[in-house]
């Protein structure tokens, strides 16, 4: 029976090629616009570490107090990064399973090859627990040890890309790399690791980045060598002392922090420890306000930092609106098309076809239009995703990808939406009175 309906639908669509083309084009464009913007939205709102994001937390401490928030902030949110004093206190207390303070660096690297000019790389100064905490994949070697942290060892983890550049892609573990004019021993080479958004340091990266993290060195080593922070520095008051050391003694915030807490008990224990710490600071006179801390997991922190650009959301909203208009349009055209065939419906009904048969016939026709629109939509989505790279900012456009699930979703949305749009016209078609149609003709 389904084949018969297919044949009927094909015949009907062929009879009015203009109208059919119109509906297919509308569905195709509507679906493609939605899917293209969806691919961007999906990319920027995705969970960068889905298997672990609910166990990774970002502690926030109110080291500025109500005065530091300025007149425009009405919420009582503490700053979203840490100053040096508090970051070091948290590291010393070591209350999480794994944790790391980190700051963005941008040191120069001098290639061993005498003829080559120095290059600039970006990276982070982190603690040894950074690598196991974030499940960072290694191509060669490993991260450094906790001893290397405390001894401020001159060790480095480099990216596969930098390894290609400096060592031709060979296993460089144990070899030497010159960072800011000092020699560091390579202990690990990263595999392909480029999480987006950069959930471990949203504050300094703004969420998305086209660059690759090329080098990681021990935090305390970087501090001791005076390698300055390359990210944002926010101050509620000017530091009392000059230089990078002055920054470390100030309440300016420039350090990101992440801690792994495996269960609810660990989370609440950490939370109460944070409150206790803030209370201690209050008693000591450093804070003249009550504890005001936050402990958000990665998804909540990403949401708090609004890493998904509002442009992306507005685009998706507008594209969904376009899809709805296309569906309303299709519903109108289908209505016209179906009711034009009232006499045909009358004959079929008079010959004994039940209403369900009329439903099946016309919904099949709507579904076929949806399928054709979906196929066109696939092509246009391909064009759309390819062209976002010259329309959107590079860091975001690079994330939009065409994959199987997007293609499947495109077809599914097209067929389901068109069938839904065909429901009312089909209902009307099924109400056609056979007697009236037969009489009038």
């Amino acid at each position: 029976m389904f084949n018969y309906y297919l044949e009927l639908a094909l015949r009907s669509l062929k009879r009015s090629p203009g109208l059919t083309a119109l509906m297919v084009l509308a569905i195709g464009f509507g679906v493609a616009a939605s899917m293209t913007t969806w691919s961007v939205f999906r990319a920027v709102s995705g969970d960068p570490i889905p298997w672990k994001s609910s166990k990774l937390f970002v502690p926030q401490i109110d080291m500025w107090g109500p005065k530091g928030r300025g007149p425009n902030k009405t919420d009582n949110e503490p700053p979203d990064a840490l100053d040096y004093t508090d970051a070091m206190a948290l590291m010393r207390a070591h209350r999480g399973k794994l944790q790391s303070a980190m700051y963005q660096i941008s040191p120069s690297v001098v290639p061993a090859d005498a003829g080559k000019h120095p290059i600039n790389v970006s990276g982070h100064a982190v603690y040894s627990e950074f690598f196991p905490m974030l499940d960072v994949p290694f191509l060669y070697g490993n991260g450094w040890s906790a001893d290397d942290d405390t001894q401020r060892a001159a060790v480095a983890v480099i990216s596969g890309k930098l390894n290609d550049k400096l060592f031709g892609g060979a296993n460089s573990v144990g070899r030497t790399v010159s960072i800011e004019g000092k020699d560091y021993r390579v202990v690990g080479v990263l595999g392909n690791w480029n999480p987006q958004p950069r959930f471990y340091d949203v504050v300094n990266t703004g969420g998305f980045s086209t660059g690759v993290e090329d080098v990681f060195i021990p935090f305390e080593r970087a501090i001791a060598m005076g390698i300055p922070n390359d990210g944002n520095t926010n101050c509620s008051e000017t530091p009392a002392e000059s230089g990078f050391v002055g920054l470390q003694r100030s309440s300016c915030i420039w350090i990101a922090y992440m801690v792994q807490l495996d269960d609810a008990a660990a989370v609440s224990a950490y939370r109460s420890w944070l409150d206790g710490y803030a209370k201690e600071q209050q008693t000591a006179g450093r804070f003249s306000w009550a504890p005001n801390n936050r402990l958000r997991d990665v998804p909540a922190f990403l949401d708090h930092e609004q890493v998904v650009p509002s442009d992306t959301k507005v685009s998706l909203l507008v594209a969904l609106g376009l899809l709805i208009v296309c569906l309303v349009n299709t519903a109108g055209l289908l209505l016209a098309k179906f009711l034009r065939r009232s006499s045909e419906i009358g004959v079929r009904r008079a010959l004994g076809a039940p209403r369900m048969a009329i439903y099946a016939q016309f919904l099949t026709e709507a579904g076929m239009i949806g399928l054709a629109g979906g196929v066109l939509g696939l092509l246009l989505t391909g064009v759309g995703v390819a062209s976002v790279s010259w329309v959107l900012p590079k860091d975001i456009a690079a994330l939009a990808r065409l994959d199987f699930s997007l293609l499947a979703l495109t077809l599914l949305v097209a067929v389901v939406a068109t069938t839904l749009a065909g429901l009312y016209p089909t209902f009307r078609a099924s109400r056609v009175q056979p007697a009236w149609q037969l009489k009038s003709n």
Partner: protein
Amino acid sequence: MTLHPMIAALRRHKAGVVLIALQIALTLAIVCNAVFIIGQRVERVNRPTGLDESNLFLVSQQWVGAPSGDDPASVEKLDSLQQADLAALRSLPDVASVTPINSLPLLNSSWNGAVDLKPGTTGQGSFNGTRTTYYFSDEQALSTLGLHLVAGRNFTVADVQHRGFRDQGEPSLVILTKALGDKLFPKGDALGKVIFLNGATTPTTIIGMVERMQVPGTGSWTNSFVWNATLVPTRLDANFARYAIRAKPGRLDAAMHAVTPTLYAANPLRVLDDDSVKSFAQIRAEAYRADVGMAILMGVVCLILLAVTAAGIVGLTSFWVGQRHRQIGVRRALGARKIDILHYFQIENLVIASVGAVIGLMLAIGLNVLLMQSFEMERLPVAYVLAGIVMVLALGQGAVFVPARRASNVPPVVATRAA
């Protein structure tokens, strides 16, 4: 012609009328807001920075193994490195002038603070007062950037100081933008007045004002102080430096190409990569890429919407014309002229489109309110909605013309034929 028979006829196919009106309403709502977004972005992108942007480019570079800049001796060492670079760049044949500067408008790397009319209460400043961005530069800033001095004087060589990047201390004189000067001194008499930077206890004198200079940040967080720039006659000494360079007219490419070898010749121990030398046009394109992209995207969506809606009207009207073939013949046989039939369909469309436009007007405002609540959108001006209504009505008339003319060509003889 009275509307009565037409409305009676429309009642016969309610669903089609409702769908077309709904489609027009949604189209109007989305197009109004999308065009408003386009308008806002275009306005943002087209605002002048206050700089003479042609023939201007920026060099960002970093020294390798340079001293920290945390003690006076190393600051002096860094300053001599910078002075050597400046001398080398200024001697290039295609270069008109060079100035060291910490950032440029649209570069999205900024040093922000606040200026106040009162001194700070503690030695340690806080950021009360009017928000501003600082540009640390020297006496050649105005000529290199092409800023227009509207009051007072430029910096002289003797005014220019230098200090470590992370050292504290406020300058004794500054040049402000007119916008900032007028904000601090609404009477317009800012010249020669004394202000306090970042809550400092030491005064700073305003020695000049430039017509206009944008801040480096292009995000919405800078909207409140986008024209509040302060020029400080200080070279900042760090292990990196930026130089703004004005090439001689028409010699931009040549000057940009000459920079890298010149700087390597002066001192090879430095990082200069592909991104180090950028024309201002490049800086502008990167800064506004998201805005231009959003405008293009909204434009494409609008075009598709209008095309789909126009095609929908053509399709549905064609169907109605076909359905009423015989009635049209009867009207023609009873004496209606071709133009009457044409007008009938045109007015019918106008009625439906007007209903759609009224609903669309409300939807447009609703959508705008939604966007204002969730995303930093501004209120949709009435002019956009009115223009939108005129546009959808015109679109309807344009779309209905072909099927309506086909209807008017139905010969009266059709009436005599059996259906």
